[in-house]
């Protein structure tokens, strides 16, 4: 019957792109802690990389002390901890290229975009609030 054929066509269309079943969700990862003193920065990055495998719409936000995570010229040799700086540069290979820094956090700490290891978009608090409100899932570290 014609109706069944339409229903079948719809069902097939949903699986045309074999990598994505259903809607793509907007994920936002909010990073607020300085690197190295606690493990949050590294853990957050690892969760992002895992999520990258699922082809969702991912944004990363760095605010409060989280802005320090993107600082250039980290030398962790003497501390003997993992220097995960360069991993932020690898994110675009996973199609994660929406990185945001909160302007107020950056300025309160005397930092500028020249201090960061990757290109970022600077948002003020209001713009950031709007971005957060548009997300489906928020993970905070």
């Amino acid at each position: 019957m014609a109706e069944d054929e339409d229903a079948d066509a719809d069902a097939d269309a949903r699986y045309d792109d074999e990598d994505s079943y259903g809607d793509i969700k907007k994920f936002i990862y909010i990073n607020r802690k300085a690197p190295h003193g606690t493990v949050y920065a590294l853990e957050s990055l690892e969760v992002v990389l895992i999520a990258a495998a699922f082809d969702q719409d991912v944004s990363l936000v760095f605010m409060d002390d989280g802005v320090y995570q993107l600082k250039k010229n980290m030398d962790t040799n003497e501390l003997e901890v993992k220097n995960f700086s360069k991993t932020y540069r690898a994110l675009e290979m996973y199609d994660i290229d929406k990185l945001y820094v909160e302007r107020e956090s950056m300025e309160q700490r005397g930092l500028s975009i020249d201090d960061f290891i990757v290109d970022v978009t600077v948002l003020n608090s209001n713009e950031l609030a709007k971005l957060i409100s548009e997300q489906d899932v928020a993970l905070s570290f």
Partner: protein
Amino acid sequence: MLHIVNKSPFERPSLDACLRSAQSNDAVIFIEDGIIAATQGTVLSDKVENMLSSFKVYALKADVDARGLSNKVIEGIEVINYGQFVELVVENGTPISWL
């Protein structure tokens, strides 16, 4: 007396607690995320610079370098290594940690 501050002043007010308790000529060392207080150009830099008139102030090199802040340390704060940290403890006696 030697005071150790290991958390960022933006994360918690441990530095303030330290400053309320420290006496003239005490030594204060910033370690771990605490080194953030020792950097120039922050909204707290003036407060930390003022410490220099009452205390000997230090920052641990390994932590400063790991965060890429070596060229941003407030002038007058001495950046020292672990060996020198041990000497500070020997000179000043049992330290007090402000977590």
